[in-house]
């Protein structure tokens, strides 16, 4: 259920509404952020294909994602992420503006600007890591899964790092070696800030020159 920033804005004074209107992110920003996430996710996806090729002994092949269902799926996924990022930002922004109004009832626009800069810096100190982790995790898992499926590769996988906090991650780590298909049908990230990725231990691959690498 997305957070409803509009109801918070409705409770604001006119000055605070003006500040929120200036600062909030809109649909143009959704599209811009989607584009940035897709650029990053595509880079990760291609890198993971390259790594998977190395794991089947094909060190001279590099991932290259141009067109096709994988790129469409990444685009769809990151559009969803971008909408969520923007909505959460607008919600948190509303909370920050209301808090400034409570702390400094006489705040003018310079006060709002200075305090919102501090708020954004504090928020970015943890939020950027969360966004990067999710962007990275989904793209790596998708690349591992596509690589195994398109190249008909079997084998097993182990979730790493071994250290795990949430029960889902602890469960997969505790199982140790998992059949590759089962692992890739239940891919991480399993929650926000999930740091896990599978180390794959593939069986025999075919000819390196015919390996599917995302093209």
């Amino acid at each position, binding site marked *: 259920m997305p957070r409803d920033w509009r109801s918070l804005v409705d409770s604001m*004074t*006119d*000055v*605070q*509404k*003006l*500040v929120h209107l*200036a*600062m*909030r*992110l809109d649909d143009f*920003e959704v599209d811009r*952020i989607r584009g*940035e996430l897709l650029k*990053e996710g595509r*880079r*990760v996806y291609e*890198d993971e294909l390259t*790594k998977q090729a*190395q*794991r089947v*002994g094909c060190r001279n092949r590099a991932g290259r994602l141009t067109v096709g269902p994988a790129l469409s799926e990444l685009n769809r996924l990151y559009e969803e992420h971008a909408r969520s*990022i923007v909505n959460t*930002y607008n919600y948190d922004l509303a909370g920050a503006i209301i808090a400034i109004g409570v702390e*400094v*009832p*006489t*705040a*003018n*626009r*310079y*006060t*709002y*600007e200075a305090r*919102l*800069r501090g708020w*954004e810096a504090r928020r*970015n100190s943890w*939020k*950027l*890591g969360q*966004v*990067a*982790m999710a*962007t*990275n995790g989904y793209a*790596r898992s998708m690349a591992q899964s596509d690589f195994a499926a398109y190249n008909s590769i079997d084998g097993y996988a182990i979730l*790493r*790092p071994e250290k795990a906090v949430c029960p889902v991650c602890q469960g997969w780590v505790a199982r140790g070696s998992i059949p590759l298909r089962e692992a890739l049908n239940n891919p991480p990230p399993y929650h926000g800030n999930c740091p896990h*990725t599978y*180390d794959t*231990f593939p069986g*025999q691959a075919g000819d390196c020159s015919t390996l599917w690498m995302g093209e």
Partner: protein
Amino acid sequence: MASHRELVRLAEVQRRDRARQLQAMQERLAVALSNEVGFNRLRAITDEEWEAAVLAGEPVGEA
């Protein structure tokens, strides 16, 4: 076909590389996700716009 031992060693190298790439991505996202546009719009609010909002009932003064 690589041995299990070689794959374990390669996995360690790849994990370090993934971590390095994640850090680099976070640094790029810091630029991509900053809301400078919003701060520019906030600074661009005119005195008239601000005063009109103030007159609607908000107590305001120099901070």
